[in-house]
């Protein structure tokens, strides 16, 4: 089947990638650190903004994402979802300060950073990180925090793809491996000054490729590998608590302002544009999903609105500070339509069980957003523009960035799932699924009537 062939051409690609990365690293290690000439100024307004942005991304994760996902599963699996999202976030935070930050943002080469900052070596309250404005810096600790929250939420997004059937040990082991071998390299390639995609001029304002395509594809791979939930397509598998999902969606939106507008690293005019776009692209996407569903299925649903909201947030992520507000609304709307079609028809046609539509929303919405960024950044369409912009050229670059990410995470995830399967096994038994993961894996129940 398909997986086999993916493996056939993907594994060598990954191996090659790792080799190049290693070489690049070796070369680069010789180069002098290129930071901090003529002490840059730190503005307390920026520092405050970045601190609050970091806090907002945590809010997105716990309780935001945890609740958004948790409300969608059956009551007997509620805690397992809350637990997976939370545990993975904690693990990634610890991993981040031990070696993740260094691998992602250490100088390194085109594919990966280095080990120069393991255990945050050398960073003090006086260390600073550059922003996108010459001469303006922020305390490095807050940059560490901000990026840490991204590393903490991204692997957590994946677990929605195979919720209600994965072993807890498998979920957290996979997350740490994936963070290490997939997320850190991709983050480096896209965001580090000497990363490969960054070098191409690929645009990703706040993580469309790094976070959403990356996790969406991994979720798809996982959903296929683990197989469908017992009873899928036969029993009623309805969300057990949609109000929780709405709380989650609301907190995701609220927190996403930190995610998107925080990605500007400063509190200036562009930041406020990113803020505005994160309002209006989201609102437009929520409405479009709702109205399309109303037309197609006869009723507008709350889950539809919430799904559109998330699709819009995903799509505007790479374009947040680059598009104008009108372009942002169009981008959000387009993503909502495509994701709607994907989640309601294409997925059923293909027949895999991506429990919470992680690929359908984060993967597909991320791809729409990443490619669309190449369009809406156009000054002719109200975007802020970039140097030497041509629409065709930029779109091509964006597609290349998407392709690299899809391949890297697709192949990498496949290998890592196989490894985890060998080490601890991926899936619980059918009996355990019937009893529910809360009791089986965690010895607890979410709700007690009295």
């Amino acid at each position, binding site marked *: 089947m398909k997986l086999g062939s993916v493996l056939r051409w993907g594994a060598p690609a990954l191996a090659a990638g790792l080799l190049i990365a290693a070489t690049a690293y070796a070369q680069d290690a010789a180069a002098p650190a290129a930071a901090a000439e003529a002490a840059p100024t730190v503005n307390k307004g920026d520092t405050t903004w970045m601190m609050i942005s970091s806090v907002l991304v945590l809010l997105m994760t716990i309780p935001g994402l945890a609740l958004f996902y948790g409300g*969608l599963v059956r009551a007997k699996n509620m805690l397992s979802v809350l637990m997976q999202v939370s545990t993975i976030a904690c693990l990634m935070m610890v991993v981040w300060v031990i070696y993740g930050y260094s691998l992602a943002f250490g100088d390194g080469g085109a594919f990966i950073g280095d080990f120069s900052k393991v255990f945050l070596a050398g960073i003090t309250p006086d260390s600073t990180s550059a922003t996108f404005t010459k001469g303006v810096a922020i305390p490095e600790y807050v940059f560490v925090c901000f990026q840490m929250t991204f590393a903490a939420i991204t692997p957590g997004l994946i677990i929605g793809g195979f919720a209600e059937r994965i072993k807890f040990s498998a979920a957290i082991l996979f997350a740490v491996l994936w963070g290490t071998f997939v997320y850190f390299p991709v983050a480096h390639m896209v965001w580090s000054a000497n990363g490969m995609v960054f070098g191409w001029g690929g645009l990703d304002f706040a993580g469309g490729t790094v976070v959403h395509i990356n996790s969406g594809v991994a979720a798809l791979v996982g959903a296929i590998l683990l197989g469908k939930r017992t009873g899928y397509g036969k029993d009623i598998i309805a969300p057990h608590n949609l109000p929780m999902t709405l709380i989650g969606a609301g907190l995701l939106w609220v927190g996403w302002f930190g995610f998107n507008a925080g990605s500007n690293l400063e509190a200036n005019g562009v930041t406020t544009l990113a803020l505005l776009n994160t309002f209006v692209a989201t609102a437009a996407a929520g409405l479009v999903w709702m109205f399309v569903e109303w037309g197609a299925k006869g009723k507008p649903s709350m889950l539809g609105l919430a*799904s559109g909201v998330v699709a819009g947030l995903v799509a505007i992520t790479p374009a947040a500070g680059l598009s104008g507000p009108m372009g942002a609304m169009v981008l959000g709307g387009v993503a909502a339509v495509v994701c709607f079609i994907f989640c309601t028809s294409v*997925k059923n046609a293909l027949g895999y069980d991506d429990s919470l*539509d992680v690929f359908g929303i984060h993967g597909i919405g991320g791809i729409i957003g990443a490619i669309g960024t190449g369009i809406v950044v156009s000054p002719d369409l109200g975007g802020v523009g970039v140097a030497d912009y041509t629409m065709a050229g930029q779109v091509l670059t964006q597609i290349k960035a998407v392709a690299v990410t899809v391949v890297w995470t697709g192949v990498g995830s496949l290998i890592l799932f196989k490894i985890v399967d060998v080490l601890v096994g991926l899936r619980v038994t059918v009996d355990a699924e019937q009893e529910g993961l809360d009791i089986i894996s965690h010895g607890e129940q979410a709700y007690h009537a009295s």
Partner: protein
Amino acid sequence: MKLVMAIIKPFKLDEVRDALTGIGVHGLTVTEVKGYGRQKGHTEIYRGAEYAVSFLPKLKIEVAVVASAVDSVIEAIASAAKTGQIGDGKIFVYAIDQAVRIRTGETDNDAL
């Protein structure tokens, strides 16, 4: 002694209770149940998943009474619970051999 068990629409509870107290019945037990019958349910859609829900919320009422009161109890419940629309529910009657009031130990008719 008889036990009258009725399945009714949930919003009819207060009327049924009042009808029963009106004829001197001062004890009953209510259970939330789901009913399947001729009354058709509804469809729920959650993203790509559509479900025909055919179990509808109903209440089950159980009243233990002396045998001679059965007809008036049935009459009271039936007229209070009736809307005339499909799904109004059923009344079933069966015999009970013994009854005990736990607090006092009274038995049978005295216990109702």
